[in-house]
């Protein structure tokens, strides 16, 4: 038996098919993964993301510590409530994990992945050496991601007036505390929506309210196809410690300026940049024929060599198969993928297929 979130019993009562995910028993779907996917794109759905790891960073040197730890720069978070996405790197420039940072009244709040929890916490501790910081894992909190074009409106109707006001006023990529809840306008689906952290004991009641109001519970299956359509990397699949952010379509999360900020991995990234950049890049693939692209299928690029699909599935929104793939840096607009011994032509695109319900390819 794996670890359970405070919402486990409710998932089972809602008919979820439970699966193991990084040591956690999580809902894969509640009947139809594709239906849940459409619900989020067209209306609103709710995911239990309580398995993710929340760490509060406080102390006089919290900012200095995070400016050393992360390739993105928390000095950009000019005021309480702002958030940024980024990666923490090892000294070789490899991605240890991706995360989101919120600036809070008492410091910062980090949300890192579930499957990487142990190594992340060890790394956070190790890097804290020499800094006046206090790290507190917040396993007393549950987290719900309510995502979709109607997510904020529907949520606002179910919470206290001050929380409703906050939900209506929060700009994108901001998060603020309201009492012992933390409400953020963030997510990982390519849609507008909220991520709400709240005391574990209040989570089943709130999820019940959301579902009662007609918000579809959605599982990891839909979460995976939504983030894939949005071109968002899944740690451990599309990136890991063997690739730099430049090779993972995350160059935009590297804050090169100011040049004197010495974040972990900086020297390695600069060496790669000076050497002409990464040898591979992460691209999107679209299969125009019938079939399904899957992780680890081989990609062949004429004249350049081979690559590999890192995430692949059927895109419910596009009605065809899409993938993320790591290919030689010079790859152009066409490639081929081997599916069960046969080669299929694929279109190579920017790895972002859908945003706010609209096709980008």
């Amino acid at each position, binding site marked *: 038996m794996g670890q359970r979130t405070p919402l486990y019993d409710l998932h089972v009562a809602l008919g979820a098919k439970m699966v193991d995910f990084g040591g956690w028993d999580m809902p*894969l*779907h509640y009947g*139809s*993964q*594709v239906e849940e996917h459409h619900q989020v794109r067209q209306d609103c759905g709710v995911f239990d993301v309580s398995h993710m790891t929340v760490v509060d960073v406080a102390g006089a040197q919290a900012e200095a510590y995070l400016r050393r730890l992360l390739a993105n720069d928390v000095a950009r978070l000019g005021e309480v409530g702002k958030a940024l996405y980024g990666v923490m790197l090892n000294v070789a420039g490899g991605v240890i994990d991706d995360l989101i940072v919120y600036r809070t009244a008492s410091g910062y709040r980090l949300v890192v992945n579930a499957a990487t929890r142990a190594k992340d916490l060890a790394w956070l501790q190790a890097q804290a050496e020499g800094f006046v910081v206090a790290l507190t894992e917040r396993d007393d909190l549950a987290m719900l991601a309510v995502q979709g074009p109607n997510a904020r409106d529907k949520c606002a109707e179910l919470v206290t007036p001050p929380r409703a006001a906050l939900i209506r006023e929060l700009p994108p990529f901001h998060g603020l505390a309201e009492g012992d809840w933390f409400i953020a306008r963030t997510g990982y689906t390519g849609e507008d929506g909220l991520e709400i952290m709240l005391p574990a004991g209040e989570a089943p009641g709130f999820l019940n309210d959301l579902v009662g109001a007609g918000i579809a519970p959605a599982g990891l*299956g839909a979460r995976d*196809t939504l983030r894939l359509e949005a071109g968002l990397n899944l740690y451990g699949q599309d990136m890991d410690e063997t690739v730099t952010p430049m090779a993972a379509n995350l160059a935009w999360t590297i804050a090169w300026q100011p040049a004197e900020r010495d974040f972990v991995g900086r020297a390695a990234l600069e060496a790669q940049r000076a050497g002409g950049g990464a040898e591979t890049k992460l691209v999107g693939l679209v299969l125009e024929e*019938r*079939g*399904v692209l*899957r992780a680890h299928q081989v990609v062949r690029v004429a004249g350049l060599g081979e690559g590999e699909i890192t995430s692949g*599935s*059927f895109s*419910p929104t596009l009605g065809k*198969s899409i993938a993320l793939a790591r290919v030689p840096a010079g790859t152009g607009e066409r490639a081929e993928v081997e599916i*069960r011994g046969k080669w299929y032509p694929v279109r190579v695109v920017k790895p972002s297929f859908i945003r706010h319900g609209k096709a980008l390819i």
Partner: protein
Amino acid sequence: MSKTPAELRYAASHEWARLEQDGSVTVGITDHAQEALGDVVYVELPEVGKALAAGEQAGVVESVKAASDIYAPLAGEVLAVNEALADAPEQVNEDPYGAWFYRLKPANAADLEQLLDAAAYQAGCDA
């Protein structure tokens, strides 16, 4: 709870087989199988005319989640395939015993008797 019609025969690899009036055998995948697969988005069918051995791979069914091989529950020659599944693979979820995959001319009609009956197949699924 998945459905397992009593009038059909089954392979442990989750195909159902139905003997038709003309002696041919229609093959599909079971309710249990479609439920385990989740939303089916692609079906690859065998070529008409192909001679399949019992247990030989006869195609592929892919859900959003994963690809899964389908097998020939008994030996025979492929007489027809259900082309409609190419455009509407979701029929496999909606009506697993209506959404047939292919029809075989069995090499030996008695082979059908070797397959599991509904009770035995269901017992295997529940185990």
